[in-house]
C-alpha cells in the first residue's frame, strides 16, 4: 500500500486559473515541522495552566493558614 502525496489547490486570483498540485518535499517537511511546533505549544499551554492552578491552590492554602475565611479569600482573589 502506498501513501498518496498530499495535494493543494492553487487559484491564481488575477487570472482565475486553478491547479491541483502535489506538495513538494519542502512543503511536506514544513507541514511536519508545524505539527511538531503546534504540539509543543499545546503542551506548553497545558503546563502553564497547570502551574497557574497549582500556584493558586497554594496561595489559597496559605491564606487559609493565616486565618482568612473562604469569603475573604474569594474577595481578594476574585475566585
Amino acid at each position: 500500500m502506498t501513501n498518496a502525496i498530499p495535494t493543494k489547490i492553487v487559484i491564481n486570483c488575477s487570472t482565475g486559473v486553478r491547479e491541483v498540485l502535489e506538495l513538494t518535499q519542502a512543503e511536506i517537511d514544513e507541514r511536519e515541522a508545524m505539527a511538531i511546533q503546534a504540539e509543543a505549544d499545546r503542551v506548553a499551554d497545558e503546563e502553564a495552566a497547570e502551574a497557574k492552578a497549582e500556584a493558586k491552590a497554594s496561595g489559597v492554602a496559605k491564606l487559609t493558614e493565616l486565618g482568612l475565611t473562604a469569603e475573604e479569600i474569594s474577595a481578594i482573589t476574585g475566585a
Partner: protein
Amino acid sequence: MQAIETVTVGSGGQASIVFDVIPADYTDLKLLVSARTTGTGQAWQLINILPNGVTANRSQRYLAGLGSGTDNGAGNELQAWASSASSTTNTFGSVAINIPNYLSSVAKFFSIDSVTENNATAALQVLTAGLWNDTSAITSLELTLNSGNFVEHSTATLYGILAGSDGTTTVT
C-alpha cells in the same frame, strides 16, 4: 467588499488551499472559510495561515472557549480552526479573517475569528489577534493543515475591500 475568488474543495480533499497572485487593487482583505477536515481525536483541527507561503515572522495571541472551559495563549503562528472528523457528521467550522492594509510595507495585522460546530459539549471558539511582522505586501494566502485534508465541499472566499475617496471610509 468585492469577492475576488472562491475555492471549493472537490472529491478527495486537499491538504492546502492557496490564493495566489492576489491583486494589489484593494485596501483590506477578508477571507471567509467554511471547513471540515479529516483529522481525528479532538473535534477541531488547526489551520495554519501562511502569508506569502512563509512561516517566518508570524505571531498571535488568542482567547478560546471550549464548551466547558476557557483557554488563552500566544505563539509564533497564525492559526484558525475547523471542525474535524471527530465532530458531528457533516458539520463545518466557520472562520473569518480580516487583514487591513495588506499592501503595507510594515507589519500586517490579522484578526481571526474561528468557531467550530459540534453537537456535543466540546466545540471550540477562538478569537485571535495576529501579526505578520514583514515588510512585504501580501501577494498570496495559504491555508494548510498539519495532517490530513480539507474535506469535499469546504469553501474559502477571498474578498477585497476598498477605501472610500477620503481614504478612510470603507465602501462596497
